[in-house]
């Protein structure tokens, strides 16, 4: 299984539809302060099932929808899709390629899709269950949080081992 691409639309500073294609191996993402690099990480966490705005550095969930600039109006919707190559059937679903989509309207309504078929958030989190992927997974090393695994209390560190078990 590998992460083929991410598509962002209306998510934080990504007001235009932007697609980023990844390769196996190492992809580096660079750019000036505040240009939107960590917003991409937030987008991945959101689709993988993040439930609280605080995990996405916001105070309300609407904070993830593009809220406008001096030249552009705020949008009413945020949508992010992650596409994976599933040729080795790592995800328990019978498709060669799996696209997971999450949408949020300013009204507060949420929608979730797996390969364009509507589903529940629970279906997405269950699909990723045994892959080591997830919102709090050890495989998402957030900015300035490298100390986090070391500084947290001994009880909190169990989570990493349980995830891997």
């Amino acid at each position, binding site marked *: *299984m*590998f992460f083929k691409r991410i598509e962002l639309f209306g998510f934080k*500073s*990504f*007001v*235009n539809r*932007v697609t*980023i*294609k*990844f*390769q*196996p*191996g*190492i*992809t*580096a*993402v*660079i*750019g*000036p302060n*505040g240009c*939107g*690099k*960590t*917003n*991409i*990480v937030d987008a*991945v966490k959101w689709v993988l099932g993040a439930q609280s705005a605080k995990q996405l550095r916001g105070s309300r969930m609407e904070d993830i929808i593009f809220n406008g*600039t*001096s*030249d*552009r109006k705020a949008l009413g919707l945020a949508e992010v899709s992650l596409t*994976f190559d599933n040729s080795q059937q*790592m995800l328990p679903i019978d498709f060669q390629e799996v696209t997971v989509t999450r949408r949020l309207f300013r009204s507060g309504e949420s929608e979730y899709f797996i390969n364009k078929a509507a589903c529940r958030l629970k279906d997405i989190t269950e699909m990723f269950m045994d*892959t*080591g*992927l997830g919102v709090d*997974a*050890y*495989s*998402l*090393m*957030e*900015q*300035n949080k*490298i*100390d*986090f*695994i*070391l500084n947290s209390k*001994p*009880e*909190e*560190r*169990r989570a*990493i*081992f349980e*995830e*891997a*078990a």
Partner: protein
Amino acid sequence: SRANFEKTFNQVRENFKKIFNELFEGGSADIVLVDNENMLESGIDIIAQPPGKKLQHIALLSGGEKALCAIALLFAVFLVKPSPFCILDEIDAPLDDANLERFKNMLKKFTARSQFIMITHNKKTMEMADILYGITMEEFGVSNIVSVKLKKSEPAIDQGKPEEE
């Protein structure tokens, strides 16, 4: 289940000792259960001893040593349960040049198993990427993506059209 956790814990522990020693070029480290009697509830302590230094609690490690220790733990878990992809957001910021090189060499060993997405400002880290993307904000507050060709000296942002779908 208990047997499962115990097996995983011991595997991660073995890996952590090995990888720590390799990343620090010496020294030793360990992970121990705070309460041995109660495997399924106990917290987990980390002990680290950089080369030539006394064994001590990880809180006394320096910023760079802590980051390297956390990286060792991440890779130790990865060996037991590799997640298909991993996002590292400026994990190289606290590292000096020597430790950055050691981290890079270690990371290369994992790219066969997993895909890495690295956000960085450090030119030495960019050099190891298979593909490089630049996030720009030519229009204030609006994120866009461009593909970057890395010339050995300076990344030249290729203003060409971002990859169109």
